[in-house]
């Protein structure tokens, strides 16, 4: 029993660390409706799977005899654990110690968590509840000097984006470096009401003459709407559940492949209502999400960033058990036309799918870029061109289903046309460089100007041209490869997922993912 006293002392120190910032501060955390960092980690991981690293790091005070008198743990708790039995790295800010500010942490602990994920090739979850990085101006007084700022560990943060799944959970008011850590992820969440995110909080902003509350400045719904984070949830438990679910579609690192789960749904299931899913009236909208949910394995659709760039729906799903990245158009928002933010959302999503070797299914109803003054003001053409570049830079297995419209440059961007056009069209397909409506005015300007009754001539031209829009005319010329019965779509997509599976190639891809 030679070392028993030391082990007993170790346990004493661990017990001190478990007090976090002390009873009062923990009570304040609870009163704010927030869990403590240790409760969070416990609820996030498989029960009992957490192995903490660096628990007893912190600031100790000794008496004159050299005996430990008091101890304040570092405000960053981290280690390894498991999610659905797969190992992960987790690190969480402890707001009860100096508001989670970096100056009360031991910086190398955060670095260690990043490095652990990087070198062990494990997913990383950041539980963010801290005020920032450089800390407060108070350090001026303690250090009696300042320093040129640098972003500690950012080489690892960036490298992790290229190598392991990174999830950020905003679980409090988050500012500065904390915000940057929340956003520098593949998937980020905030919990409504308890979490706000900004570059600098209301007191600093007040100095610029702008008086705002935390919610007004960085409320979760606003952050999701502008695309600063991906999604908003109602509770911390929901955040943990979504983080776990997100990871279930992904490999532990890019050196591995997205894992297949035992199929739970019939790959040959045909849903009869799909024959009626698209209204014959071209102006009428329909529920694309309902179509998505029908086509993929039951209950497997995990939508990402629903509040942002809504004309494009993005998410993860399973087809015959295989994880697949799903893109679809939402006709309710700009008819599925690409806005600037939809383009940015799409770019990031394609890069994400590329990073983790996820085959892509694209359900297409794109009338083109959204047109008009606002669209030009938003620089939609630049952001759309960026999405186009992403599409042509990746070499993922890619299957497009032309559900309805594909017009113009954005419509053309449903597939990299230079590769095998693995593509289907529903009989509701309608495509071209410009739609007949609107296109007539441009193409027949002189005739219309000279006509006695321009409206009548316009209608007559439209009547004449409309039959040529039939997808069967395109199919005759093999300009569309395969017109299918919409009810056959799921069996064909499951076939695609099975064909794509052996083509997925593990490894680091270029260009690397940017948040």
């Amino acid at each position: 029993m030679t070392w028993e006293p030391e082990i007993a002392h170790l346990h004493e120190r661990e017990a001190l660390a478990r007090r976090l910032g002390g009873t009062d501060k923990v009570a304040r955390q609870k009163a704010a409706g927030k869990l403590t960092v240790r409760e969070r980690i416990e609820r996030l991981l498989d029960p009992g799977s957490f192995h903490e690293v660096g628990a007893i790091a912190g600031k100790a005070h000794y008496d004159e005899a050299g005996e430990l008198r008091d101890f304040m743990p570092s405000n960053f708790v981290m280690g390894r654990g498991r999610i659905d039995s797969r190992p992960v790295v987790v690190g969480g800010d402890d707001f009860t110690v100096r508001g989670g500010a970096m100056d009360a942490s031991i910086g190398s602990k955060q670095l260690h968590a990043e490095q652990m994920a990087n070198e062990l090739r494990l997913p990383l979850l950041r539980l963010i509840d801290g005020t920032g990085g450089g800390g407060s101006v108070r350090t001026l007084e303690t250090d009696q000097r300042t320093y040129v700022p640098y972003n500690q560990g950012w080489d690892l943060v960036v490298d992790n984006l290229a190598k392991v799944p990174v999830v950020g959970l905003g679980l409090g008011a988050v500012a500065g470096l904390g915000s940057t850590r929340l956003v520098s992820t593949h998937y980020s969440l905030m919990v409504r009401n308890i979490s706000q995110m900004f570059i600098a909080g209301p007191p600093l902003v007040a100095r610029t003459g702008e008086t705002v509350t935390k919610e007004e400045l960085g409320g979760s719904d606003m952050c999701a709407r502008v695309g600063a984070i991906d999604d908003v949830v109602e509770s911390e438990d929901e955040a943990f559940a979504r983080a776990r679910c997100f990871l279930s579609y992904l490999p532990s690192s890019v050196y591995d492949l997205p894992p297949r789960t035992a199929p739970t749904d019939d790959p040959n299931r045909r849903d009869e209502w799909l024959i009626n899913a698209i209204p014959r009236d071209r102006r009428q909208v329909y529920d694309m999400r309902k179509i998505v949910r029908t086509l993929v394995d039951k209950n497997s659709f995990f939508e990402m960033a629903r509040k942002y760039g809504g004309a494009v729906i993005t998410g993860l799903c399973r087809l015959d058990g295989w994880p697949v990245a799903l893109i679809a158009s939402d006709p309710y928002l700009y008819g599925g036309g690409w806005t600037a933010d939809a383009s940015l959302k799409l770019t990031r999503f394609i890069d994400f799918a590329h990073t983790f070797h996820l085959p892509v299914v694209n359900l297409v109803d794109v009338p083109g870029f959204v047109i008009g003054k606002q669209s030009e003001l938003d620089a939609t053409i630049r952001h759309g061109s960026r999405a186009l570049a992403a599409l042509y830079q990746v070499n993922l297995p890619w299957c497009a289903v032309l559900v309805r419209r594909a017009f113009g440059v954005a419509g053309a961007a449903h597939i990299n046309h230079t590769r095998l056009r693995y593509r289907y069209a529903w009989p509701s397909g309608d495509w071209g460089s410009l739609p007949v409506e609107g296109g007539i005015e441009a193409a027949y300007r002189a005739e219309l100007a000279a006509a006695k009754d321009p409206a009548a001539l316009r209608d007559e031209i439209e009547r004449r041209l409309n039959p040529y829009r039939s997808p069967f005319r395109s199919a005759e010329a093999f300009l569309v490869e395969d017109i299918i019965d919409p009810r056959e779509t799921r069996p064909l997509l499951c076939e695609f997922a099975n064909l794509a599976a052996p083509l997925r190639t593990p490894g680091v891809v270029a260009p690397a993912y940017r948040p």
Partner: protein
Amino acid sequence: MERRVHAEISGVLIEIKAKPGDSVDADDPVLLVECMKMHIPIVSPVAGRIRSIEVAEGAMLEEGQLVFTIEA
């Protein structure tokens, strides 16, 4: 409780489908907007009674504009 509904898209308001005082269900279309050659409904987020319609037929709506209020 009053809910204020804002346009999620810009476009031309082509039809007002419910008037103040009408009862509607959640997801019932209240307004119809033409955008990208589509007729896109703005639906009620909740069941309730329409309190006010803030826009006129033929108006050009902007994204984020208040379009109607409803008493849930």
